[in-house]
C-alpha cells in the first residue's frame, strides 16, 4: 500500500516530459524497427522528427501514407518520394547457373563469399544462402528450392536492409512502378556468361534493337530505362536467354509469390 503510494508520487514527480508529437508520430509508424530511416528503431526516429533533427519523409517502409501522416503531425508538407522496392537482379539458381566448387560450410552468403569469392562461377550471381531472407524485417524474401532469392513486391517496403547485407550486390532498389527488369548482374562477355549460366545477359543487343529508347547495353550488361516501362514489354519475348522479366507476369521460376498486385497502386499517378 505504502509502496504503491510512493510509486504513484514518484511517477508524478519524476515524470519525463515527452513531446506529444513524438508519441503521435510513434503511433503512426509501423513499429517494425527496421532501421530504414537510419535511426535505431521507430522510437528513435519519432524523437528525431519531433525535435526537428530528422526529415519527416524518411519512413520509406511506411509508404506515402505514413509519410503524409508524419508530415501532418509536424505541420510540414511531405516531400513526395516515389515508392521503391528491392529487386534481386539474378535468375541463375542452382539448375541454371554453374558453381565452381561444392560448398558445405555455414549457410550464410557473406561467409561463403569469403571462400574464393563464393561458390557460384558467375561473379555477380545470387548465392541463394539466404542472408537477405534472414535480415528482412518484413518477411518479404524467400529462397526458392533451387537456391535463388526472390523478393515479394507486395511485402517489400523498401528499407534497403537486404541491399547492404548482400555480399555480391545483386539486390538493387528500383521504382515500384517499373515492372520490367533485366535480371542479370554479370558484366562478363557473352561467351563467358554462356559457359556458366543459361539465363544470364549475353549482351546480344536484341532488346536495344527492338526498343532502342527503353534499353541500353553497357559494359556487357543490358539495362532498362524505367521511363519506358510499357514500351520495354516488347523486348521481354525477344530476349534469347529470357533474362528480361516483366514482374506483372509473375516471379522467377520456383517462387511461391503470386503475381504482384501492388504494381500499379492508384496513388501512383
Amino acid at each position, binding site marked *: 500500500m505504502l509502496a504503491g503510494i510512493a510509486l504513484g508520487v514518484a511517477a508524478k514527480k519524476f515524470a519525463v516530459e515527452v513531446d506529444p508529437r513524438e508519441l503521435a508520430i510513434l503511433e503512426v509508424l509501423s513499429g517494425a524497427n527496421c532501421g530504414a530511416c537510419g535511426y535505431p528503431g521507430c522510437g528513435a526516429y519519432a524523437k528525431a522528427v519531433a525535435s526537428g533533427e530528422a526529415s519527416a519523409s524518411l519512413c520509406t517502409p511506411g509508404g506515402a501514407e505514413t509519410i503524409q501522416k508524419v508530415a501532418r503531425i509536424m505541420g510540414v508538407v511531405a516531400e513526395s518520394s516515389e515508392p521503391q522496392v528491392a529487386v534481386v537482379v539474378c535468375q541463375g539458381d542452382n539448375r541454371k547457373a554453374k558453381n565452381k566448387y561444392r560448398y558445405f560450410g555455414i549457410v550464410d552468403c557473406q561467409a561463403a563469399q569469403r*571462400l*574464393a*569469392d563464393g561458390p557460384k562461377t558467375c561473379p555477380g550471381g545470387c548465392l541463394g544462402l539466404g542472408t537477405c531472407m534472414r535480415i528482412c524485417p518484413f518477411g518479404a524474401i524467400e529462397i526458392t528450392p533451387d537456391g535463388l532469392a526472390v523478393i515479394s513486391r507486395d511485402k517489400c517496403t523498401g528499407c534497403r536492409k537486404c541491399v547492404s547485407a548482400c555480399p555480391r550486390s545483386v539486390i538493387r532498389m528500383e521504382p515500384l512502378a517499373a515492372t520490367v527488369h533485366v535480371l542479370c548482374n554479370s558484366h562478363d562477355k557473352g561467351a563467358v556468361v554462356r559457359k556458366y549460366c543459361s539465363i544470364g545477359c549475353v549482351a546480344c543487343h536484341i532488346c536495344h534493337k527492338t526498343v532502342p529508347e527503353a534499353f541500353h547495353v553497357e559494359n556487357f550488361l543490358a539495362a532498362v530505362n524505367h521511363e519506358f516501362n510499357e514500351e520495354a514489354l516488347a523486348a521481354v519475348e525477344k530476349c534469347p536467354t529470357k533474362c528480361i522479366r516483366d514482374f506483372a507476369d509473375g516471379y522467377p521460376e520456383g517462387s511461391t509469390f503470386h503475381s504482384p498486385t501492388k504494381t500499379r497502386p492508384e496513388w501512383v499517378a
Partner: protein
Amino acid sequence: MKLKTFAGGLHPPDNKQWSAHKAIEVCPLPALLVIPLSQHIGLPAEPCVKPGERVKKGQTVGRAKGFVSVPVHASTSGEVVAVEPRPHPSGRDLPAVVIVPDGADEWLDGIETVRCDELTPDQMRERIRDAGVVGMGGATFPTHVKLSPPVEKPIDTLILNGVECEPYLTADHRLMLEEPQRIFAGIVVMRKILGVSRIFVGIEANKPDAIEVMTKLCAGTGVEIVPLAVKFPQGAEKQLIKAIVGREVPSGGLPMDVGLVVQNVGTAAAIQDAVTFGRPLIERICTVAGPGVVEPKNLRVRIGTPLSHLVAHCGGLAGDPAKIIMGGPMMGMAQLSLEVPTTRGTSGLLLFREEDLTLAPEGPCLRCGRCVRVCPAHLLPTTIAAYARLERIDEAADYGAMDCIECGCCTYSCPAEIPLVQSIRSGKAAILAKRRKG
C-alpha cells in the same frame, strides 16, 4: 621420458607412411611456369618485366613494395609471355608472370658465393630480403621482417620448427634427413643476425631418424634438438614455444614479445642459399600425397609449376579428384583446379577422391565439449562460433575469437559436423571490419 608438449590438441591419423621413406626427387621443368606476384603476406610484388622479354634463372620479375613485402624471381631461364591475372591458390585470379622455359636453365650472372662470417647482420638481412625468403611452413611471412625485431624487444632464443605435425606432409622430414647441413648453415646465419645463444630444434617424436641425424650434426654446437610429443598442432608457433621453453605469447602478441623467433627448417635452408650463395628462393620441397594420386612422392619443385605437372610426375591421378588441398589436411587450402601454380608456401599437395571424403550434414551442438578440450588456444570454440553466426560480434571478441589460430582441431573433433573454424573465421573478419570502421 615424458615428451614436451602443450595442453589441448589431438592426433589425427598421420598418414605419413606413404611418402616418409621416399627420397626427394627433382620434378622436371614444366612447359609453362606461372609465377604469382603475391606469394607472401604483405603487399604483392610489382612486375618489372614485360611480355617478350628474356629472363634468366634467379632474375627478379617482381619488385618488393614496402618493408613487409619481398621480390619474386624467375624460376628458370626463358621468355616472359604474359603478365596478367592467372588462377591463384587463394581462389581468385591474381597477377602473375608467365614464363615459357627455354630448357637451358641458365643462372643470372653476378650471383656470387660469399663467406657468411664476412657479412654484417644488416647485409645478411638484405640478402635474405632480396632472395625473397618467406616462412616456408605455409604462412609465407617475409623472413627478413621476422629477423628484424625492434630494439625494445630483445631476442634471447631461436626455435627451429621441424615438427611437421600436419598429416600426410613429409617435406620437412625429408629435408632434415637429406640436407641437414643446409638447415644447420641457416641456423648459423640466424644466430649471427639475432645474436642469440639458446637455439632449439623442435621435432615430433614420430621422426626418430630425423632426430638422430640432426642430433649428430648439432652435437657440441650449442643447438639442442628437442623431441616433442606427436600431437597436432605441435608445429603451431605459439604451441611450439609453450612446449619447448614454457613461455606463453600474450593475446594479440607475437613471439618477439617473449623474446623468441621461430623459423621453419625449410626457411633455414632457404636462408643459407640466400646468404651464402646469393640464390633466390625459386624452388621448394613439396609432398604430393593422398589416395587420389598414384604414387605419393616428395618433390623438389620450381615455384610456378602447375599442380597438374606435379601430379603427372607422381604417376597421375588415381580417380577423379573430389578435393584438392594445398598444404596439410588440417590447415591447408582447398583448390578449385590443378591449374593453380606451386608457390613458396606450397608444402604439400593432397588429392582425395569422392569415396575418401566423409560428408555429413551439420547437426545441432551436443554440448559434448570435445572442441573445448582440444582447443590449443584454450578457447570455447562452440560459444565463439555460435556468437559469430548470430552476428554478435562484440561477444565473440570478448570470448577471444581473435586468439583462434584456426588449426581446425575443433571442427575435426566435432561429432555434430559443425563448421566451427569457418564460423569463427567469419566472426574474426567481422571483428576486424568493425575495428577498421572504428
